[in-house]
């Protein structure tokens, strides 16, 4: 079986490869076997999954990029602070979320609202183990988002991340501190603890969001 990409040639001295074909080769051989198997044994391609556009915000260091990368089975050992937007298609069993993740540094977060248009849902990530000061900033930002005209009717998934850290506040404490019961009343939101150490739970949290997105879709009578 042939691999899909035998070689790569770039007509520019400015580029250097960090293409690792030796590793890819093995993967691709397995992949080709899989493709062959599928062609012979399956009746056809699976029906396409519905897609939803979601914006992902939260302060710098809250863990947005790490969580999303792991959901895409990507390496997380060389993650650096996001200094703009990162648009990713994150696959789930019964939907694809087109996530627009925005950097959380001060210089970036002042532009968050430029990206709200067209969103169908929001993922807000916070560091449960951050300082009092940072937690307060996170609260301000979450409240801002919950009330923003382009987001206020959308489902929110709030992830109290870094639950694995000893200083992490519990989900109950976060719920109370962020005043979610009064402030988010009438809106559809989910608050869950999360940690990159337990991605199964993270996937489950996202499934709940997808459920809300499906409901909303049916509500607005979209095909």
């Amino acid at each position: 079986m042939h691999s899909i990409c035998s070689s790569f040639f770039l007509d520019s001295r400015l580029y250097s490869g960090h293409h690792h074909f030796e590793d890819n080769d093995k993967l691709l051989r397995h992949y080709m076997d899989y493709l062959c198997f599928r062609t012979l044994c399956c009746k056809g391609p699976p029906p396409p999954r519905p897609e939803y556009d979601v914006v992902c915000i939260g302060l710098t260091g809250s863990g947005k990029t790490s969580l999303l990368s792991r959901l895409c089975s990507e390496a997380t050992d060389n993650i650096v602070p996001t200094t703009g937007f990162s648009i990713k298609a994150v696959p789930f069993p019964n939907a694809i979320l087109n996530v627009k993740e925005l950097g959380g540094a001060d210089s970036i977060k002042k532009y968050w609202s430029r990206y709200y248009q067209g969103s169908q849902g929001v993922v807000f990530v916070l560091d449960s183990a951050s300082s009092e000061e940072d937690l307060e900033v996170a609260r301000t930002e979450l409240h801002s988002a919950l009330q923003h005209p382009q987001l206020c009717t959308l489902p929110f998934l709030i992830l109290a991340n870094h639950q694995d850290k000893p200083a992490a506040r519990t989900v109950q404490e976060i719920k109370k501190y962020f005043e979610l019961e009064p402030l988010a009343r009438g809106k559809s939101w989910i608050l869950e603890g999360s940690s990159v150490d337990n991605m199964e739970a993270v996937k489950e949290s996202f499934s709940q969001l997808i459920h809300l997105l499906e409901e909303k879709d049916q509500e607005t009578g979209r095909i």
Partner: protein
Amino acid sequence: MRVKQECNSSDVGVPCTTEDELLKRSAISPEDVLGLQKITENYLCGPLENVYNIDFTRFKIRDMETGTVLFEITKPPPLESAVNKRDLEPNAGRFVRYQFTPAFLQLRRVGATVEFTVGDIPINNFRMIERHYFRGQLLKSFDFEFGFCIPSSKNTCEHIYELPPLSEELMREMILHPYETQSDSFYFVDNKLVMHNKADYSYSGGP
């Protein structure tokens, strides 16, 4: 990111255009390139028109069905003491040659990630139109809007390409004629062409 995908200029409702016509215009718009029927011979703008200092720094392709990364390439960071840019070939970095095996043509959904940096002027509306041709035939046109770009930012975007179903015959031809599958990627800021990159493709599995 979902992309708009149409095949013909008539689908999009724009008149056909030729490269010669466009080269005479002072500014080229998205509608202008959507009317092109074949690959251009020349670049429709020069490197100096990239006033927003947009720089592509990484590119990756993965199969959406399995998540397998098919290839990835990164541009090394510029060295301050590097060769004087004027000495380099003016179109270096604007052309990429891809070499795939025939199996690539069987893929249905491919995720292409592009990473780019932006200079210190904010960009209101960044849009890319990419047209793929085999010989004189338009195979597919992709159109996506990145929208707003934060000044001095580094951004990544993965767009899902639904690869067009190709007839056995066409696939055979594409495999037998390497590098006759070509693409033009046009980049617009506020509906004005600022960058134009090109690529060609082999599906025969060899150099």
